[in-house]
């Protein structure tokens, strides 16, 4: 018996390593292909660098201005992460309210849908007015843009607990609160996780759009400034960092979710 467990553990490790290397390899290849195409377009069509700079120029810029880029990246990253936390917290809170109090649901649902009907981008100037040019308005933008997917996922997850689980808990004499805490909430986690994955991808949109409308720092701000000064290579450098930031955030969150929700299918 111990031999078998040792064997499975070993092979498990191996497959784990493979599982890590393969996507990395795939990503490297797709990045190379994209960069190659990009370079080919610049060379083939003779693009001037103020329209489309070559990837090499962008990388030079990236290295040259790394301190400035890093400073603005930190600001945007902070906005995204705080926005994520705020949006998740609000989504969870609203979903719980709708679950626990039926009348509240009837009142909240139209508001929730209306909040999604108003484009968040249209709200941005108002948010600037109320919350100022600083980081707060961008956090709220990011939170607002993820609010709807998180709330609906969380609510659906909490509502669709398999009825057998609830029956079992009821025969064991669980109170409403115990049922929520020990059965409904954990059962909703896989659904909530897909909401969080969506949120992580779209939260940067909110933060950067907020920066475009009015700010004094952040990658969105840097891009606007660079654009105005025709420093297109810097704009692309900022864009590159922003996409890397989003991808990194997604993979980190995905790994964390898989670690904490190992039963997720």
């Amino acid at each position, binding site marked *: 018996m111990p031999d078998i467990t040792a064997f499975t553990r070993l092979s498990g490790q191996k497959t784990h390593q493979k599982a890590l290397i393969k996507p990395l390899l795939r990503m490297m290849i797709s990045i190379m292909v994209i960069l190659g195409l990009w370079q080919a377009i610049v060379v083939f069509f003779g693009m001037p660098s103020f329209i489309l700079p070559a990837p090499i120029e962008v990388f030079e810029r990236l290295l040259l201005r790394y301190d400035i880029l890093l400073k603005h990246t930190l600001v945007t990253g902070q906005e995204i992460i705080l926005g994520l936390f705020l949006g998740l917290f609000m989504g969870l809170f609203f979903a719980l309210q709708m679950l626990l109090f039926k009348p509240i649901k009837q009142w909240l649902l139209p508001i929730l849908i209306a909040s999604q009907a108003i484009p968040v981008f249209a709200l941005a100037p108002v948010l600037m007015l109320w919350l100022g040019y600083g980081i707060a308005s961008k956090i709220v933008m990011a939170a607002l843009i993820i609010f709807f997917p998180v709330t609906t996922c969380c609510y659906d997850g909490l509502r669709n607990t398999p009825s057998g*689980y609830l*029956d*079992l808990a*009821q*025969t*064991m*004499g669980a*109170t409403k609160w115990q049922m929520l805490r020990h059965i409904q909430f*954990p*059962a909703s986690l896989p659904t909530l996780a897909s909401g969080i994955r969506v949120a992580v991808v779209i939260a940067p949109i909110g933060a950067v759009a907020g920066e475009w409308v009015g700010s004094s720092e952040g990658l969105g701000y840097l891009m606007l400034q660079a654009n105005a000064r025709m420093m297109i290579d810097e704009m692309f450098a900022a864009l590159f960092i922003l996409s890397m930031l989003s991808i990194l955030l997604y993979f980190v969150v995905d790994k964390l979710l898989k670690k904490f929700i190992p039963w997720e299918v």
Partner: protein
Amino acid sequence: MSASMRALSAKIPALQIDISAGYLRYTGSKTATLQGLNMSFPAGQWTCILGRSGCGKTSLLRYLAGLLDQKTSWSGELKTTPPQFNLKNNIAYMAQQDLLMPWLSVLDNVTLSAKFGNTITAVQKQAALALLEKVGLLDSADCLPQKLSGGMRQRVALARTLMQNKPVILMDEPFSAVDAVTRYRLQDLAWELLKDKTVVLITHDPQEAIRLADQIYIMQGKPSSAESLKVPASLTPRQFDPECAQLQQSIMAFLEQDDA
């Protein structure tokens, strides 16, 4: 410590349940599901209920488990002996699906009911481990249920049911989703572990009923009522003999009547 140990292993009273002129109707439905139901589940014995799909046997079980209180109206007598024991607080329910929580380890699944009482003590954990040993799954205590096969999962469910330490066990086809050999072993294990409990077992499998039952009811009709069948005098779990084969024939004949 020792007090809770005693509480866990304490002899629970055997409970008898008698139903007379039972009538059950779902709210919003025009016709009754059960009518003129007379049954008795003697203390410490296995009662098997057979019947076609939709005959109301699951409704009866769910009603006994207290799961239908808000959805149905009931009339008739439901008596427990000794009478001071409330049925709802003295049952453990085992369904066709094992209903193991996928986020809890096997051990935590077994101690699930303790979560709804108060905090889980070291003693309870010990008791749960002892039960897991009885069902032969001590090695899997820290696994998540998804690692287990169907038969193993149902054994964990059995351990969880025993952990509740209730005198009445209500079972709704708990062995129907596994292969024949696994089912046979599960029946033996359940029979061994649930010896002094009052067991009500719903099944679609006449052989299962014949093997395990101290008495058999067949539910049929619309609204349905129950009819008692005589079982062989031999001891459970029965080896299949000509008498059993005869009983199986008459069960099938009974069930086919319902077509009319």
